[in-house]
Protein backbone atom coordinates (compact mmCIF):
# COMPACT_ATOMS: atom_id res chain seq x y z
CA UNK A 1 0.00 0.00 0.00
CA UNK A 2 2.70 2.45 0.97
CA UNK A 3 4.63 2.42 -2.30
CA UNK A 4 1.44 3.08 -4.28
CA UNK A 5 0.96 6.76 -4.96
CA UNK A 6 -2.77 7.42 -4.89
CA UNK A 7 -2.42 11.18 -4.57
CA UNK A 8 -4.36 12.82 -7.37
CA UNK A 9 -2.20 14.86 -9.67
CA UNK A 10 -2.72 18.55 -9.53
CA UNK A 11 -4.56 19.13 -12.81
CA UNK A 12 -3.01 22.58 -13.06
CA UNK A 13 0.51 21.19 -12.96
CA UNK A 14 0.61 17.69 -14.40
CA UNK A 15 3.80 15.81 -13.79
CA UNK A 16 4.30 14.66 -17.35
CA UNK A 17 4.32 17.95 -19.22
CA UNK A 18 7.24 17.84 -21.65
CA UNK A 19 7.02 14.49 -23.38
CA UNK A 20 3.26 14.04 -23.08
CA UNK A 21 2.31 17.43 -24.43
CA UNK A 22 4.78 16.94 -27.28
CA UNK A 23 3.09 13.64 -28.11
CA UNK A 24 -0.37 15.21 -27.75
CA UNK A 25 0.51 17.89 -30.25
CA UNK A 26 1.88 15.32 -32.62
CA UNK A 27 -1.53 13.59 -32.60
CA UNK A 28 -3.32 16.85 -33.34
CA UNK A 29 -0.81 17.69 -36.05
CA UNK A 30 -1.23 14.26 -37.67
CA UNK A 31 -5.01 14.58 -37.62
CA UNK A 32 -4.75 17.98 -39.28
CA UNK A 33 -2.20 16.74 -41.79
CA UNK A 34 -4.35 13.78 -42.80
CA UNK A 35 -7.36 16.05 -43.15
CA UNK A 36 -5.37 18.51 -45.23
CA UNK A 37 -3.97 15.90 -47.58
CA UNK A 38 -7.40 14.30 -48.09
CA UNK A 39 -8.97 17.68 -48.77
CA UNK A 40 -6.26 18.73 -51.20
CA UNK A 41 -6.28 15.43 -53.09
CA UNK A 42 -10.02 15.17 -53.37
CA UNK A 43 -10.66 18.76 -54.32
CA UNK A 44 -7.95 19.02 -56.93
CA UNK A 45 -8.89 15.72 -58.53
CA UNK A 46 -12.57 16.63 -58.42
CA UNK A 47 -11.90 19.87 -60.23
CA UNK A 48 -9.64 18.42 -62.89
CA UNK A 49 -11.33 15.13 -63.42
CA UNK A 50 -15.03 15.86 -63.40
CA UNK A 51 -15.83 16.57 -67.01
CA UNK A 52 -19.06 17.06 -68.88
CA UNK A 53 -19.38 15.16 -72.14
CA UNK A 54 -18.67 18.20 -74.33
CA UNK A 55 -15.48 19.02 -72.39
CA UNK A 56 -14.34 15.40 -72.35
CA UNK A 57 -14.76 15.13 -76.12
CA UNK A 58 -12.96 18.40 -76.72
CA UNK A 59 -10.03 17.43 -74.47
CA UNK A 60 -9.86 13.86 -75.68
CA UNK A 61 -6.32 14.21 -76.98
CA UNK A 62 -4.75 15.53 -73.81
CA UNK A 63 -6.73 13.12 -71.59
CA UNK A 64 -5.18 10.06 -73.23
CA UNK A 65 -6.05 7.07 -71.06
CA UNK A 66 -6.41 9.08 -67.83
CA UNK A 67 -9.26 8.03 -65.56
CA UNK A 68 -11.89 10.69 -65.01
CA UNK A 69 -15.56 11.21 -64.20
CA UNK A 70 -17.76 11.79 -67.21
CA UNK A 71 -21.04 13.57 -66.59
CA UNK A 72 -23.97 13.51 -68.96
CA UNK A 73 -27.58 12.56 -69.47
CA UNK A 74 -28.51 9.12 -70.76
CA UNK A 75 -30.12 9.92 -74.10
CA UNK A 76 -31.00 6.52 -75.50
CA UNK A 77 -32.45 3.36 -74.04
CA UNK A 78 -29.46 1.48 -72.56
CA UNK A 79 -28.81 -2.00 -73.92
CA UNK A 80 -26.87 -4.89 -72.47
CA UNK A 81 -24.69 -7.21 -74.56
CA UNK A 82 -24.46 -10.95 -74.07
CA UNK A 83 -21.23 -10.63 -72.05
CA UNK A 84 -22.91 -8.24 -69.60
CA UNK A 85 -21.42 -5.06 -71.05
CA UNK A 86 -23.88 -2.20 -70.81
CA UNK A 87 -23.91 0.25 -73.69
CA UNK A 88 -25.58 3.64 -73.61
CA UNK A 89 -25.18 7.15 -74.94
CA UNK A 90 -24.62 10.16 -72.71
CA UNK A 91 -25.05 13.74 -73.78
CA UNK A 92 -24.10 17.14 -72.42
CA UNK A 93 -23.98 20.49 -74.15
CA UNK A 94 -25.25 18.94 -77.37
CA UNK A 95 -22.34 16.49 -77.61
CA UNK A 96 -22.83 12.72 -77.40
CA UNK A 97 -20.52 9.96 -76.26
CA UNK A 98 -20.96 6.21 -76.19
CA UNK A 99 -20.26 4.51 -72.87
CA UNK A 100 -19.32 0.84 -72.56
CA UNK A 101 -19.82 -0.05 -68.93
CA UNK A 102 -18.30 -3.20 -67.49
CA UNK A 103 -18.84 -3.53 -63.76
CA UNK A 104 -21.51 -3.36 -61.10
CA UNK A 105 -24.99 -2.60 -62.31
CA UNK A 106 -25.98 1.03 -61.70
CA UNK A 107 -28.64 1.87 -59.11
CA UNK A 108 -32.34 1.34 -59.71
CA UNK A 109 -32.69 4.97 -60.75
CA UNK A 110 -30.55 4.46 -63.86
CA UNK A 111 -32.51 4.84 -67.07
CA UNK A 112 -32.96 7.05 -70.10
CA UNK A 113 -33.26 10.70 -69.12
CA UNK A 114 -31.19 10.46 -65.93
CA UNK A 115 -28.03 12.46 -65.30
CA UNK A 116 -25.20 10.02 -64.65
CA UNK A 117 -21.52 10.13 -63.71
CA UNK A 118 -19.44 7.39 -65.31
CA UNK A 119 -15.93 6.71 -64.04
CA UNK A 120 -13.48 5.44 -66.62
CA UNK A 121 -11.40 6.56 -69.60
CA UNK A 122 -11.47 6.99 -73.34
CA UNK A 123 -10.83 3.75 -75.16
CA UNK A 124 -8.21 3.68 -77.89
CA UNK A 125 -9.75 0.67 -79.59
CA UNK A 126 -12.66 1.17 -81.91
CA UNK A 127 -15.87 -0.70 -81.13
CA UNK A 128 -17.88 -2.80 -83.57
CA UNK A 129 -19.86 0.33 -84.45
CA UNK A 130 -16.66 2.06 -85.47
CA UNK A 131 -16.51 4.66 -82.72
CA UNK A 132 -14.08 4.75 -79.80
CA UNK A 133 -16.21 4.68 -76.68
CA UNK A 134 -15.71 5.73 -73.10
CA UNK A 135 -14.98 2.60 -71.07
CA UNK A 136 -16.42 2.81 -67.57
CA UNK A 137 -16.19 0.59 -64.52
CA UNK A 138 -18.57 2.57 -62.31
CA UNK A 139 -21.78 4.36 -63.21
CA UNK A 140 -23.43 6.53 -60.56
CA UNK A 141 -26.78 8.23 -60.90
CA UNK A 142 -26.64 11.91 -59.99
CA UNK A 143 -29.86 13.02 -58.40
CA UNK A 144 -31.00 16.61 -58.77
CA UNK A 145 -31.91 18.76 -55.77
CA UNK A 146 -35.57 18.68 -56.74
CA UNK A 147 -37.84 16.22 -55.02
CA UNK A 148 -41.34 15.45 -56.14
CA UNK A 149 -43.79 13.49 -54.07
CA UNK A 150 -45.41 10.59 -55.86
CA UNK A 151 -48.97 11.67 -55.30
CA UNK A 152 -51.58 9.78 -57.28
CA UNK A 153 -54.14 12.54 -56.76
CA UNK A 154 -52.04 15.18 -58.42
CA UNK A 155 -51.15 15.24 -62.08
CA UNK A 156 -49.14 18.46 -62.20
CA UNK A 157 -45.65 17.81 -60.99
CA UNK A 158 -45.02 21.48 -60.78
CA UNK A 159 -42.53 23.33 -58.64
CA UNK A 160 -41.95 27.07 -58.70
CA UNK A 161 -44.06 27.39 -61.79
CA UNK A 162 -41.75 25.20 -63.86
CA UNK A 163 -42.61 21.84 -65.22
CA UNK A 164 -40.37 19.32 -63.47
CA UNK A 165 -38.13 17.37 -65.75
CA UNK A 166 -38.34 14.03 -64.08
CA UNK A 167 -34.82 12.86 -63.39
CA UNK A 168 -33.47 16.29 -64.35
CA UNK A 169 -32.76 15.10 -67.83
CA UNK A 170 -32.40 17.37 -70.79
CA UNK A 171 -35.86 18.40 -71.98
CA UNK A 172 -35.91 17.03 -75.52
CA UNK A 173 -35.05 13.52 -74.46
CA UNK A 174 -37.23 13.16 -71.41
CA UNK A 175 -40.41 11.59 -72.49
CA UNK A 176 -43.17 10.48 -70.19
CA UNK A 177 -42.54 6.94 -71.36
CA UNK A 178 -39.01 6.97 -69.96
CA UNK A 179 -40.15 7.71 -66.45
CA UNK A 180 -43.40 5.86 -66.27
CA UNK A 181 -42.01 2.50 -65.20
CA UNK A 182 -40.58 3.91 -61.98
CA UNK A 183 -43.86 5.50 -61.04
CA UNK A 184 -45.55 2.15 -60.78
CA UNK A 185 -42.72 0.20 -59.17
Amino acid sequence: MTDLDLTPQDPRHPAASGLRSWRNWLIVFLLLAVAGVVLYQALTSARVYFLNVDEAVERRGELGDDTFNLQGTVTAEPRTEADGTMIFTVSFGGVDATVRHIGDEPSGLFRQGERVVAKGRWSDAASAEGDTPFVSDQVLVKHSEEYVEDNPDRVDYELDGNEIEIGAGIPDTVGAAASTPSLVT
Partner: protein
Amino acid sequence: MTATSSKVTRVIGYSALAFTALALLFGLVISGPEVNMRDSVRLLYVHVPSILTAYLCFGITLVGSVIYLRNRSTFWDLVAGSAAEVGTLYLAFALITGAVWGKPTWGTYWEWDPRLTSTAVMFIMYLGYLALRRMELPHEVRSRRAAVLGVVNIINVIVVHYSVQWWRGLHQGRTFGLDPQIRDMQYFSWFLGTVALGLIAAWLIIHRFRVGWLERQLDEIHLEEALVERRGEGV
Protein backbone atom coordinates in the same frame (compact mmCIF):
# COMPACT_ATOMS: atom_id res chain seq x y z
CA MET B 1 -35.51 12.72 -11.26
CA THR B 2 -31.95 12.63 -12.42
CA ALA B 3 -29.04 14.69 -11.31
CA THR B 4 -28.54 16.73 -14.45
CA SER B 5 -32.25 17.30 -15.10
CA SER B 6 -34.13 20.46 -14.35
CA LYS B 7 -37.47 22.01 -15.23
CA VAL B 8 -35.99 23.45 -18.43
CA THR B 9 -34.57 20.16 -19.65
CA ARG B 10 -37.80 18.33 -18.84
CA VAL B 11 -39.83 20.81 -20.90
CA ILE B 12 -37.34 20.51 -23.79
CA GLY B 13 -37.24 16.73 -23.37
CA TYR B 14 -41.00 16.23 -23.55
CA SER B 15 -41.32 18.64 -26.49
CA ALA B 16 -38.55 16.71 -28.25
CA LEU B 17 -40.41 13.43 -27.65
CA ALA B 18 -43.65 14.89 -29.01
CA PHE B 19 -41.96 16.29 -32.12
CA THR B 20 -40.03 13.05 -32.65
CA ALA B 21 -43.32 11.13 -32.62
CA LEU B 22 -44.76 13.58 -35.18
CA ALA B 23 -41.60 13.47 -37.29
CA LEU B 24 -41.71 9.68 -37.41
CA LEU B 25 -45.44 9.67 -38.18
CA PHE B 26 -45.16 12.17 -41.03
CA GLY B 27 -41.74 11.05 -42.25
CA LEU B 28 -42.45 7.32 -42.35
CA VAL B 29 -46.23 7.00 -42.67
CA ILE B 30 -48.14 10.05 -43.88
CA SER B 31 -45.79 11.50 -46.51
CA GLY B 32 -45.49 9.64 -49.78
CA PRO B 33 -42.48 8.28 -51.64
CA GLU B 34 -40.60 10.36 -54.18
CA VAL B 35 -41.15 9.76 -57.91
CA ASN B 36 -37.57 8.56 -58.49
CA MET B 37 -36.04 7.83 -55.09
CA ARG B 38 -39.14 6.07 -53.77
CA ASP B 39 -38.99 5.61 -49.98
CA SER B 40 -35.31 6.44 -49.61
CA VAL B 41 -36.39 10.11 -49.74
CA ARG B 42 -37.46 9.58 -46.12
CA LEU B 43 -33.78 9.45 -45.15
CA LEU B 44 -33.50 13.10 -46.13
CA TYR B 45 -35.88 14.01 -43.30
CA VAL B 46 -33.14 12.97 -40.87
CA HIS B 47 -30.05 13.56 -43.06
CA VAL B 48 -30.62 17.25 -43.74
CA PRO B 49 -31.77 18.11 -40.16
CA SER B 50 -28.69 16.26 -38.83
CA ILE B 51 -26.22 18.33 -40.82
CA LEU B 52 -28.11 21.57 -40.17
CA THR B 53 -28.12 20.90 -36.42
CA ALA B 54 -24.43 20.01 -36.60
CA TYR B 55 -23.73 23.38 -38.29
CA LEU B 56 -25.71 25.10 -35.52
CA CYS B 57 -23.78 23.22 -32.82
CA PHE B 58 -20.45 24.22 -34.37
CA GLY B 59 -21.75 27.80 -34.48
CA ILE B 60 -22.38 27.58 -30.72
CA THR B 61 -18.85 26.19 -30.31
CA LEU B 62 -17.52 29.18 -32.24
CA VAL B 63 -19.43 31.65 -30.05
CA GLY B 64 -18.43 29.85 -26.84
CA SER B 65 -14.79 29.74 -27.95
CA VAL B 66 -14.67 33.43 -28.84
CA ILE B 67 -16.23 34.44 -25.52
CA TYR B 68 -13.89 32.08 -23.65
CA LEU B 69 -10.86 33.68 -25.29
CA ARG B 70 -12.10 37.07 -24.09
CA ASN B 71 -13.13 36.30 -20.51
CA ARG B 72 -11.73 32.80 -19.72
CA SER B 73 -14.99 31.62 -18.16
CA THR B 74 -15.49 27.93 -17.40
CA PHE B 75 -19.11 28.33 -18.45
CA TRP B 76 -18.34 29.27 -22.08
CA ASP B 77 -15.53 26.73 -22.32
CA LEU B 78 -17.98 23.99 -21.36
CA VAL B 79 -20.68 25.37 -23.66
CA ALA B 80 -18.24 25.21 -26.58
CA GLY B 81 -17.12 21.67 -25.72
CA SER B 82 -20.65 20.36 -25.16
CA ALA B 83 -21.96 21.76 -28.44
CA ALA B 84 -18.96 20.36 -30.34
CA GLU B 85 -19.55 16.86 -28.95
CA VAL B 86 -23.24 16.90 -29.88
CA GLY B 87 -22.42 18.45 -33.25
CA THR B 88 -19.88 15.72 -34.02
CA LEU B 89 -22.47 13.08 -33.13
CA TYR B 90 -24.96 14.69 -35.53
CA LEU B 91 -22.25 14.89 -38.17
CA ALA B 92 -21.84 11.12 -37.82
CA PHE B 93 -25.61 10.79 -38.29
CA ALA B 94 -25.42 12.88 -41.46
CA LEU B 95 -22.60 10.69 -42.82
CA ILE B 96 -24.43 7.44 -42.01
CA THR B 97 -27.82 8.52 -43.36
CA GLY B 98 -26.11 9.99 -46.42
CA ALA B 99 -24.37 6.68 -47.09
CA VAL B 100 -27.52 4.59 -46.82
CA TRP B 101 -29.34 7.11 -49.02
CA GLY B 102 -26.51 7.11 -51.55
CA LYS B 103 -26.50 3.36 -52.07
CA PRO B 104 -30.03 3.05 -53.52
CA THR B 105 -29.92 6.44 -55.26
CA TRP B 106 -26.39 6.95 -56.60
CA GLY B 107 -25.37 3.33 -56.48
CA THR B 108 -22.60 3.77 -53.90
CA TYR B 109 -22.27 4.29 -50.16
CA TRP B 110 -19.31 6.61 -50.57
CA GLU B 111 -17.73 8.68 -53.32
CA TRP B 112 -14.82 11.12 -53.08
CA ASP B 113 -17.06 13.96 -54.07
CA PRO B 114 -16.27 17.50 -52.79
CA ARG B 115 -19.28 17.64 -50.47
CA LEU B 116 -18.64 14.18 -49.03
CA THR B 117 -14.89 14.67 -48.74
CA SER B 118 -15.16 18.05 -47.07
CA THR B 119 -17.72 16.63 -44.64
CA ALA B 120 -15.32 13.78 -43.81
CA VAL B 121 -12.56 16.35 -43.21
CA MET B 122 -14.90 18.34 -40.97
CA PHE B 123 -15.64 15.18 -39.01
CA ILE B 124 -11.92 14.45 -38.57
CA MET B 125 -11.21 18.01 -37.45
CA TYR B 126 -13.98 18.06 -34.87
CA LEU B 127 -12.78 14.65 -33.62
CA GLY B 128 -9.41 16.37 -33.25
CA TYR B 129 -11.09 19.13 -31.25
CA LEU B 130 -12.72 16.57 -28.95
CA ALA B 131 -9.40 14.71 -28.59
CA LEU B 132 -7.73 17.98 -27.63
CA ARG B 133 -10.34 18.52 -24.92
CA ARG B 134 -9.47 15.14 -23.43
CA MET B 135 -5.74 15.75 -23.28
CA GLU B 136 -4.05 15.73 -19.91
CA LEU B 137 -3.10 19.37 -19.79
CA PRO B 138 -3.73 22.10 -17.23
CA HIS B 139 -7.32 23.33 -17.57
CA GLU B 140 -6.42 26.80 -18.79
CA VAL B 141 -3.96 25.55 -21.40
CA ARG B 142 -6.35 22.91 -22.72
CA SER B 143 -9.32 25.26 -22.81
CA ARG B 144 -7.35 27.97 -24.57
CA ARG B 145 -6.05 25.62 -27.26
CA ALA B 146 -9.51 24.10 -27.68
CA ALA B 147 -11.01 27.56 -28.06
CA VAL B 148 -8.53 28.46 -30.80
CA LEU B 149 -9.36 25.23 -32.64
CA GLY B 150 -13.07 25.83 -32.01
CA VAL B 151 -12.74 29.10 -33.90
CA VAL B 152 -10.50 27.79 -36.70
CA ASN B 153 -12.71 24.73 -37.30
CA ILE B 154 -15.65 26.88 -38.38
CA ILE B 155 -13.92 27.17 -41.77
CA ASN B 156 -15.07 23.59 -42.33
CA VAL B 157 -18.71 24.59 -42.09
CA ILE B 158 -18.21 27.21 -44.79
CA VAL B 159 -16.28 24.84 -47.07
CA VAL B 160 -18.82 22.04 -46.66
CA HIS B 161 -21.77 24.33 -47.19
CA TYR B 162 -20.42 25.90 -50.39
CA SER B 163 -18.68 22.77 -51.70
CA VAL B 164 -21.61 21.99 -54.01
CA GLN B 165 -21.30 25.45 -55.56
CA TRP B 166 -17.52 25.73 -55.72
CA TRP B 167 -16.72 22.33 -57.16
CA ARG B 168 -18.36 19.82 -59.45
CA GLY B 169 -19.42 16.58 -57.88
CA LEU B 170 -22.03 13.96 -57.39
CA HIS B 171 -23.88 15.55 -54.49
CA GLN B 172 -26.92 17.59 -55.41
CA GLY B 173 -27.15 21.30 -54.71
CA ARG B 174 -29.33 23.07 -52.20
CA THR B 175 -32.89 21.89 -51.77
CA PHE B 176 -33.86 23.48 -48.48
CA GLY B 177 -33.08 27.13 -49.00
CA LEU B 178 -35.24 30.24 -49.20
CA ASP B 179 -36.56 28.78 -52.43
CA PRO B 180 -37.08 25.13 -51.49
CA GLN B 181 -37.15 22.52 -54.23
CA ILE B 182 -39.47 20.30 -52.24
CA ARG B 183 -42.97 20.95 -51.02
CA ASP B 184 -46.17 19.95 -49.26
CA MET B 185 -46.04 16.84 -47.09
CA GLN B 186 -42.38 16.13 -47.84
CA TYR B 187 -41.38 19.67 -46.87
CA PHE B 188 -43.46 19.41 -43.70
CA SER B 189 -41.88 16.05 -42.81
CA TRP B 190 -38.44 17.60 -43.20
CA PHE B 191 -39.53 20.55 -41.04
CA LEU B 192 -40.76 18.24 -38.26
CA GLY B 193 -37.51 16.27 -38.39
CA THR B 194 -35.55 19.51 -38.06
CA VAL B 195 -37.54 20.64 -35.02
CA ALA B 196 -37.32 17.20 -33.37
CA LEU B 197 -33.59 16.77 -33.90
CA GLY B 198 -32.98 20.41 -32.94
CA LEU B 199 -34.83 20.04 -29.62
CA ILE B 200 -33.02 16.77 -28.94
CA ALA B 201 -29.71 18.53 -29.57
CA ALA B 202 -30.64 21.31 -27.12
CA TRP B 203 -31.49 18.71 -24.47
CA LEU B 204 -28.23 16.84 -25.11
CA ILE B 205 -26.08 19.99 -25.02
CA ILE B 206 -27.54 21.11 -21.68
CA HIS B 207 -27.03 17.67 -20.14
CA ARG B 208 -23.52 17.42 -21.59
CA PHE B 209 -22.75 20.83 -20.17
CA ARG B 210 -23.90 19.75 -16.71
CA VAL B 211 -21.87 16.54 -16.87
CA GLY B 212 -18.86 18.64 -17.86
CA TRP B 213 -19.54 21.00 -14.99
CA LEU B 214 -19.68 18.10 -12.52
CA GLU B 215 -16.44 16.68 -13.93
CA ARG B 216 -14.79 20.04 -13.38
CA GLN B 217 -16.12 20.29 -9.81
CA LEU B 218 -14.88 16.80 -9.05
CA ASP B 219 -11.42 17.71 -10.36
CA GLU B 220 -11.31 20.68 -8.05
CA ILE B 221 -12.54 18.64 -5.06
CA HIS B 222 -9.77 16.11 -5.67
CA LEU B 223 -7.26 18.89 -5.92
CA GLU B 224 -8.38 20.43 -2.63
CA GLU B 225 -8.26 17.05 -0.91
CA ALA B 226 -4.77 16.44 -2.20
CA LEU B 227 -3.60 19.81 -0.93
CA VAL B 228 -5.11 19.15 2.51
CA GLU B 229 -3.44 15.76 2.60
CA ARG B 230 -0.05 17.15 1.67
CA ARG B 231 -0.32 19.86 4.29
CA GLY B 232 -1.08 17.11 6.85
CA GLU B 233 2.00 15.17 5.77
CA GLY B 234 4.18 18.24 6.16
CA VAL B 235 3.45 18.70 9.84
